């Protein structure tokens, strides 16, 4: 992230200009998609594409405004960010997502649990994983077996509850 704003004078904020570019992309996609829609406005005169078009134009205007504010350096000061913990948590969420239907709820969720704890400073992954597996399994038992929530089962769950 840009560190150029600490001297107090106002300079272009490049990261914020990226935000403006993102808004241009979203607004552009909305206009492009709404152009494809059939004009089925019927008696109201407002078809399925009308509101997306209005929102898309609004986003483009906001992009211009954002670019202007970024150029003048009007965005609030940002705190320095540590990237490693963010990567750990994102990896944990991705791991859970990909393993959920293969390994079952407890094992997949234990990954998320362990990586998140790691991101917040618990460095011993083996311990984190062990705690995560036990905790996630207890949660699985309570919510799927007692409270009838449908949670994916894997090898671990089937070991204790063969019918799951």
């Amino acid at each position, binding site marked *: 992230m840009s560190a150029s704003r600490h001297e107090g004078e106002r300079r272009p904020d490049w990261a914020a200009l990226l935000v403006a570019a993102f808004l241009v992309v979203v607004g552009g996609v909305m206009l492009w998609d709404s152009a494809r829609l059939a004009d089925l406005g019927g008696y109201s005169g407002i078809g399925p594409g009308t*509101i997306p078009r209005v929102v898309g134009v609004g986003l483009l205007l906001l992009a211009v405004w954002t670019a202007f504010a970024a150029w003048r350096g009007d965005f609030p000061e940002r705190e320095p960010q540590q990237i490693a913990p963010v990567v750990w948590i*994102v990896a944990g969420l991705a791991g859970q997502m990909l393993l959920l239907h293969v390994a079952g709820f407890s094992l997949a969720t234990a990954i998320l649990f362990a990586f998140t704890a790691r991101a917040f400073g618990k460095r011993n992954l083996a311990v984190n994983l062990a705690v995560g597996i036990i905790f996630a399994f207890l949660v699985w038992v309570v919510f799927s077996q007692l409270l009838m929530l449908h949670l994916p089962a894997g090898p671990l769950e089937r070991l204790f509850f063969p019918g799951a």
Partner: protein
Amino acid sequence: MGSIDFLMQGLAAASDPMLLLYALIGVTLGTAVGVLPGIGPALTVALLLPVTYRLDPAGSLIMFAGIYYGGMYGGSTTSILLNTPGESASIITALEGNKMARRGRGGPALATAAIGSFVAGLIATLLLAFLAPYVVQLALKMGPRENFALMVLAFVTVSAALGDSALRGLTSLFLGLALACIGIDQLTGQARLSFGVPELLDGVEVTTLAVAMFAIGEALAIAAKGPGPADEVTAVKGSVWMSRSDWARSWKPWLRGTFLGFPIGAMPAGGAEIGTFLSYATEKKLSKHPEEFGNGAIEGVAGPEAANNASAAGTLVPLLTLGLPTSATAAIMLAGFQQFGLQPGPLLFATNPTLVWSLIASLLIANFMLLVLNLPLIGLWVKLLTVPKPWLYAGILLFATLGTIGANPSVFELGMLLAFGVIGYLMRIFGYPIAPIVVGLILGPLAEQQLRRALSISQGDPMTLLQSPIAAVMLTIAALALIVPLVLRLRGRGEVLRQMGGDED
């Protein structure tokens, strides 16, 4: 007064110890499932309804009422303590409630939410019992154009209340409106912005966005600050209980929230969340401490929580008097009622008074049990915040994903959760407010549909919006709310407002 006799009979019958136990069990189960972020009252009731089948009719009715109130209330606990609203109606609660919890005032925040819910539930249930037939006649006057005007009013009050920077607030709102366009257009069945992906055809779930933006975005932002005492959360400072001034500042918002939430819940198109938006804006306007809003103002918890619960009772008005389920939760309740042989409709109060009054008695008792269960638990809940950060956030993410998985165990849904979580984190870095994006997603489709329906009925004549007195009044209020601050800003050269916008989270 036949009604009162019936009510007293119902209450007397329901005060049997066994029935009270069933009510307690129902409230406990409902709270346990409803507390999960992403699982709202509708799913809670649907999941737990089979549990009630095993009991005799009186027992199952009262347990059912308990599950309903437990599910409604459960969301506010996680909103306040962990900043992870369980459903759309408790998003506003998170705004002030979590700020309070971080300053060591989690106890009073939970207490005002619990007592506010109780007060609102009590008043609203009594209103339901005695005024339902009249309220419903008023609610039916709300057609598409009146509802559209209501949505516009909600938009204006919410964006006026939530943004410190007009640019960033509007950007957040418009991103929400853009998300709202995804999926099948309700009025024509056309797929919008779904790029051939079937999972996108139903659009973005509000709960997915809310859980991702609040819970995951927050966890990422806090992790990225690194270790250090800078943002230490104070678990408890001062009393866990509400002080005299907390009471003094809470009781009026409770009442105002109740009287805002109840009629909005009774309207066919009004969701519980709209009442919470309006209540928050009202409290901010009326408060003697407007500067505390955004930093943990107790009124901002008391009012919306009361509105939320009152509107839950409000949805029972069209349900019982017309057989009209106006929300997913109400549709499930309808299924539940039929289980007890209660056929809601215009003749219900006349043909089956005993059952109606025992239902209402059950609701009152369940409401009371909720208070009994939750007040003693507040001390325990608050202790949650003393759990060391690594375990606390690992647990928060576990429960946040558990809710999403339980509602819909799809990899795609979890992928959206992750993507929105990262966006929520980036928005926090750049100082964009989170609430408007969620508000845009909730209100966007409602406003669009109501406008198009109104214009369709008038065959394209926009003047129809002003020809209804109710709609015209609401649109005028909305216009004033938008214009007056602008005028003030221009006259005061924006100094005051700019100072107020200084410390955005």
